[in-house]
């Protein structure tokens, strides 16, 4: 009982019908040797009588006079606190959110509340996406963008229902919204559970291991910066044009989420960088959903890892560089209406 390890919590998002419940049922029934407590929003959907399944009401609370980064899920704080009273009964916790929920308050709960932070650890945000309908969802609602932008792992589900060409296009679109998520193709949410559980996506020491492509040459990411796929429905009318099946040109619309990557081969000055990034997050934290960076600080032997959810950030040195010669600093922002030139200028001004 005197177990003081933080309990890993996996947040499961995705629109209704994407396959969340199927995935939850698999976690609850499959023989994987671990026990999970599951917090669901629709109690009836889980067909399992399990005393570790808890219904939640999604009560979003503003703390500290409505500061945006202090918007948290009050019900989650309460439920997690109660679950900690029988900490020895399970290995991890899964939180399912409704398809319509903005993931920010859930994520922020794990960084804002002291008790939650002490006892639990946000392990990863997993977003289940219906390959056939996701483009429509992205056209219809901003929440779909948010859920993809926030994800550490994207389950591109129901791949059997779309053509190869469609799948390539959809994946490209998702990659454009979120360059750091691991994308897994699945059918009927069939995935090795170690791909979604115990990922340590917010653990600075493991950020690198999760993103094998993160440090690669930028060519890897070029395709979303220069997305030349055209179709007649692209434009500014999305949200109204309900038969629009294709929305590849995310760069044409300011309201859309996009990712911005800045990089340099020159070492950075840590104090300058921290002053700058704090200022950026204070100013633009509302429109920046997530930030991740692996940076080469002048004088530091190890990699400096930075990550943030809106304004709440975490940073530190985390392990040696894989090769002495390649110490490229790279910082990626995912957000709305971001000014690349401005961010790049500030970033480069932190060069030592």
């Amino acid at each position, binding site marked *: 009982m005197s177990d003081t390890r933080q309990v890993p919590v996996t947040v499961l998002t995705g629109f209704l019908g994407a396959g969340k419940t199927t995935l939850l049922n698999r976690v609850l029934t499959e023989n994987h040797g671990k026990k999970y407590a599951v917090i669901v929003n629709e109690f009836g959907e889980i067909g399992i009588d399990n005393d570790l399944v808890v219904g939640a009401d999604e009560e979003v609370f503003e703390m500290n006079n409505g500061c945006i980064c202090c918007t948290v899920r009050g*019900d989650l704080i309460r439920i997690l606190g109660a679950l900690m*009273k029988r900490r020895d009964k399970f290995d991890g916790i899964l939180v399912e959110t409704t398809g319509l929920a903005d993931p920010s308050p859930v994520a922020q709960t794990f960084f804002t509340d002291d008790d939650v932070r002490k006892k639990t650890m946000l392990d990863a945000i997993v977003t289940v996406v219906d390959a056939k309908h996701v483009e429509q969802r992205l056209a219809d609602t901003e929440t779909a963008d948010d859920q993809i932008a926030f994800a550490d792992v994207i389950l591109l589900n129901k791949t059997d229902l779309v053509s190869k060409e469609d799948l390539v296009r959809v994946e490209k679109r998702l990659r454009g919204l979120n360059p750091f998520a691991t994308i897994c193709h699945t059918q009927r949410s069939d995935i090795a559970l170690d791909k979604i559980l115990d990922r340590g996506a917010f653990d600075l020491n493991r950020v690198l291991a999760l993103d094998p492509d993160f440090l690669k040459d930028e060519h890897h990411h070029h395709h979303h910066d220069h997305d030349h796929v055209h179709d007649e429905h692209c434009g500014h009318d999305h949200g109204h044009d309900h038969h629009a099946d294709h929305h590849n040109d995310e760069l044409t619309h300011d309201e859309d989420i996009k990712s911005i990557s800045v990089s340099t081969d020159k070492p950075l000055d840590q104090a300058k960088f921290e002053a700058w990034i704090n200022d950026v997050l204070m100013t633009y934290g509302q429109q920046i959903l997530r930030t991740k960076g692996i940076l080469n600080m002048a004088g530091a032997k190890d990699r400096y890892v930075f990550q943030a959810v809106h304004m709440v950030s975490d940073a530190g040195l985390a392990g040696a560089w894989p090769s002495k010669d390649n110490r490229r600093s790279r910082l990626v922002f995912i957000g709305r209406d971001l000014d690349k030139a401005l961010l790049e200028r500030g970033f480069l001004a932190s060069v030592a």
Partner: protein
Amino acid sequence: MASNTPDSERLKTWSFDAFVVGISVAGNGRTFGVALGDGTVRIVDAEAPEPAPITVHNGACLSFAPDATPDAFLSGGDDGKLVRINANGELTTLAETKGKWVEQVTAHAGANVRVYAIGKDAYVLDVKGKKEPRKISHPTTVGGLAINAKGKRLAASHYNGVSLWWLATQDSKPQELDWKGSHLAVTWSPDGDYLITEMQENALHGWRMSDGQHMRMSGYGAKVRSMSFSRRGVVLATGGADTVICWPFSGGGPMGKAPLEFGSGPMNVSDGSPVTAVSCNPKRDVIAAGFANGALVLGNPGVRSVAISGARKAPVTAMAWNAAGDRLLVGDEAGEVVLVDFRE
């Protein structure tokens, strides 16, 4: 199981091996009940043998209080049950809602009521069973329940304030006390003149009932988690800081006054850890406090405080005095329960 610690014959310690959720003293004034995270309750009585586990819930106890009858307790669990446990360990299931959690419970002997809450709804039960259970609803989940000393009014805290209900009448609309933010545990001053809530933030909020005057009590380094009015309501002792913060409530309330404190300093028991549980003695001007590092102190502002125990292995979660004020029972997150006996 019980062992006398070498440094003091006044301490008796048990290891119950589960998170101590709550400790209460029954209406008889002498029987302690300990509710645990493994769904069991232990009865600790001066005259009884070793406390045996009584399985009350299939899951965890979430809420615990003295019952309205003199020799019993109420326990709410994550199996959706509200259960009465008497001093002999006999159980009566009073209510059951499948798939829900009973997160709040309270009772009042004079008013003959038991009240429990599931999510946004609270239910008032007539102890004699003559009246139908009454359901009262709130805009968000109930964070705390408290009945005033006279047994007339029920306070239910929630997001953005507290709802006040009359217990005798079937009022359909409560009186609302508004204050932005999430309100958790709630307590009345002994005279019923003040109502105080612990907030999600590191602060307390209070209302003076006579005129609705707000009281903001802040400056804590951690969540308050525990508060206890002294026997005459002179001070409100609170956790949440590395000393016991005591707000003065004599002469109009704490507005504009600095709180008093005790419990750190020469003994150095707190090592910066916050106070996590407090309990005012019902007979003397003495306050017991437990810390996140497991340390226990006894004291009062302005006089020298004493350490009952230095740091132990887990944060203190609950404590209560018997009615005579000569026995104190303390529990922690690791399931260690300490009985401190002050009797001659």
